[in-house]
């Protein structure tokens, strides 16, 4: 495998998958979990599991890998945690760009749902 030298400013498309035109499922859930305010890794993981109805249960490794990528892409940013908590615990908050990405993704999903309903493939109002 040829090794390539890359600098940190290299774009690293991952969460915002331009080619497929969507936000990955786990990143989407993470951004959703941060919608109510800054939170830390363990709590985000729990929230993701709850909101996905248990379908997504990322391991700590997977979760931080995604958080790191979201941070690199500017969708999430590390923030200082409350004073009384363990300083090792990292807190993350959603950025403006992140909110836009969530909105876009939600729109895309809504459009898909609409299209499915129009063809009677999904129950509910047309």
């Amino acid at each position, binding site marked *: *495998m040829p*090794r*390539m030298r*890359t600098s940190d400013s*290299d*774009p*690293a*498309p*991952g969460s915002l998958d331009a*080619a497929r035109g969507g936000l990955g499922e786990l990143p989407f859930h993470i951004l959703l979990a941060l919608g109510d305010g800054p939170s*830390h*890794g*363990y709590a985000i*993981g729990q929230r993701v599991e709850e909101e996905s109805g248990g379908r997504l249960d*990322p*391991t*700590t*490794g*997977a*979760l*931080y*890998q995604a*958080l*790191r990528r979201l941070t690199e892409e500017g969708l999430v940013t590390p923030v200082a945690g409350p004073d009384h908590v*363990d300083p*090792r*615990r*990292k807190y993350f908050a959603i950025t403006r760009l992140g909110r836009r990405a969530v909105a876009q993704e939600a729109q895309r999903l809504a459009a898909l749902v609409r299209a499915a309903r129009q063809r009677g493939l999904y129950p509910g109002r047309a």
Partner: protein
Amino acid sequence: MRVHRWLLRLSPEALRQEYGAAMEDAIANRLAAARAAGRWRATKVWWRESAGLLIVAITERGGRAARIRHARERLLRPPKAGMMDTLAQELRHAARRLTRTPIFTAAAATTLALAIAANAAIFTLVYRVVLNPLPYADSGRLIFLDYGIPGRNVPSGVPTMTWQLYHQLADNTRLLDSIAAYTGGSGTLTGSGTPERLVIARGTPSLLSVLRVTPALGRWFTEQEGVLGTPAVAVLTHGFWVRRFGADPAVVGRTIVIDGVPTDVVGVMPVSFAFPRPQIDLWQPAQSTRASASFLFSIQGIARLRDDATVTSARAEITNLIEDLARRAPNQTGIVSTALPLHEFFVGRIAEALWILLAAVGLLLLVACANIANLFLVRSESRHREVAVRRALGAGTQRLARYFLAESVLLGVVGGIVGLALAWGGVRLLVAFGPVNLPRLNEVRIDAVVVLFTAGLSLLAALAFGAIPLLRLAPITATLHDSGRGQTATRGQHRARQILMTAQVALALVLLVASGLTVRSVQRLRNLDLGFDPASTLSFGVALPPRVYETRERAAATHRAILDRLNALPGVVSASASSTLPVSGTNYGNGLVVENELDNPQQLQRQFAWFRAVAGGYLETASIRLIRGRTLTQSDVDRREPVVVIDEALAAMYFPGQDPIGKRVRSAARVDPKLPAPPWLEVVGLVANTPTGALTAPPLPQMFMPMSIAGGPEIPSEALIGPNITTMSYVVRSTTNPEDLTAAARAAVEDVDANLAIAQVRTLQEIVDRAGDQMLFTMVLLGIAAGVALLLGAIGIYGVVSYIAAQRTGEIGVRLALGAEPSGVAAMILRQSVSVTMIGVGLGLAAALAGGRVIEALLYNVSPRDPLVIGVVTLLLTGIAVVACWLPARRAARLSPLEALRTD
């Protein structure tokens, strides 16, 4: 958590610095939450988190560059082409190719899984028993206090010491951080439910601080409790606590009755505590004071070295302190310290056997790899043209290497996982059926290290058998030049195959020789002259509580009463008892003085004699062979006759070249001048040697005396006249199956005293079998390894010869068409294959002869170059190899020329 922290370390530095601590924190939280939800959930989360971290490490390291490159490629090329390069894709394709050839895949995966399972299981034993430190903090500094008496021809291996020496060491040592003593014993639990014989160990209050262990519940003994005359206390072992008290924590503080003495339970040990062996039911304090300390060799000692001390310096210091003590206590003269690391004391010689077994299964894995490599060769050659086309289209060597390695790695992963599962079952079987005397068996289980070992081994094996077809990649480009009719394989292809075949034969031969030698050893062991007849005899122990049976007379009368009832049982030929049965240890020994030989300077250089106090008719009941004179009868016991029967080892040592009958001996070393000298005893009989421990060890001198003149509860042990007869082992010889007598025997004992329990019920044959267990264990495991190697080898040879014959079908057709005899053609193929096999046999023989010394330690009375074993094994292997060559050769020769020529 430790594993996770370690896995985290595999991730790239940048990720770790930024998020490492936070991830650790999150994992700790998840694990804690999972533990609250139960063990199953906790295990699941543990594994998931480990896998997650591993994936992160792999994808972040290998994947980051790949990810960025992908992004670029996606911009430059249509999306589909960009996906083609990933490793995952390669693996998916390999999986598809493998599932398309299910027989090949199943054969390769099964072979590999079996070999991996054998390696993982034996590695588990080696790792947990030999390599893993003892389960005590800083256990490398723990030593066992072993002694030697060089003047008496005992260089080392005396495991006992005296209380006087214990105090001498505890008071004066500068190199030992702390020292503790312990001793074994037994007692009967009465009060609640049926009386139960307990295995009791006694330890000094310092024992747990030396080992650095704390009780799971309650406390250990205080310094005061280590002094005679304090109220009785006990600490339960975890197993006994669960078995007898249902793991009730309220048992701490309760009073139980042991040998009629109310005893306070003050603590419970943790489940992991199995010192010095797992069978112990409870601990009581070993009590001694400096003033009362005895000069009897009755306790075993361990110590913890100071940081600046070594085993060698500690030995020197202890030996000096013994010399110092010997000025006050002459019976300590000539003793030297041969202290050794505690781990070495426990594990001892079994380490050698386990390493040899590991080497054996390692060879088995090589045979398996050779087999699979062969299968891969066949497969890769059938793809020559495909590969050549790929190469012509511009696939680089790396790309082609990945193409082949993906398959072998996948197989390796499957083989590793299945092998690990099999090993898990295998280890449970080993623990359940392994020899009881295998040390640390209770600690044997599959853990993270074993899993890592298995994973590494599987990958290594995969690379090994995956690399062989790769070596053949270089000339592949030439294949496109070939015409479509590839009638014969190239010389190089055949050579690779033949080398593998030779290696398989050689390895199988080495394993077969090793296995054959152990079979011979076990055979020799079975035919060993034991000096007694263990068939049809039941044995069990009875301990009379010294509180109730206060005198020797009372104890002897009670044993007599029990024996009378046993002798009256239907089917019983005879019943008797001894303080120590054959193959059951040495127990009670002392030097002997021969009458009229007090001036003989050799007196002091003789080994101890081991004393056995017996009931009337014991020598007959155990069928210990009488050589001269007479045995000990009931009337000897009744009339307290001062007579003894000695064995040949004792006669050879004390009466070399003389007739011992009529000579008089007495116990030596009167340590307490206030006590009368032990009485003179007349030798009336000479019997055959019987083993005391390992069946293969040289016999130790033994002396049998009537129990009525031996030691008893009211006789101070310093009198040194013989073993205390409150605890005796019974032997019942019957005409029926001895085990059927158990209930009747128990009833007979209870009939005499309902508070007595019988213990360690087993047949003498079981005792003998157990002593030979370790050798049988290695024999069975080596036998299995050799058998599988033989089978794989035979399959390998058959496969190679079939393949070569098939490759040469065209050539054979031409030969047959030109008038060659079918038998001639078969002979030609056979000749070529057999000569390859014989090279393997030759190499294997050379290796077996050269490496014989390695296995010598496992053998008994068999030379590692035993001609019978080597001859039989060589014939067997050659025979099987010839058959494996002949079958495909015959098939090839039976083809009609037309058929043969049409195959292309």
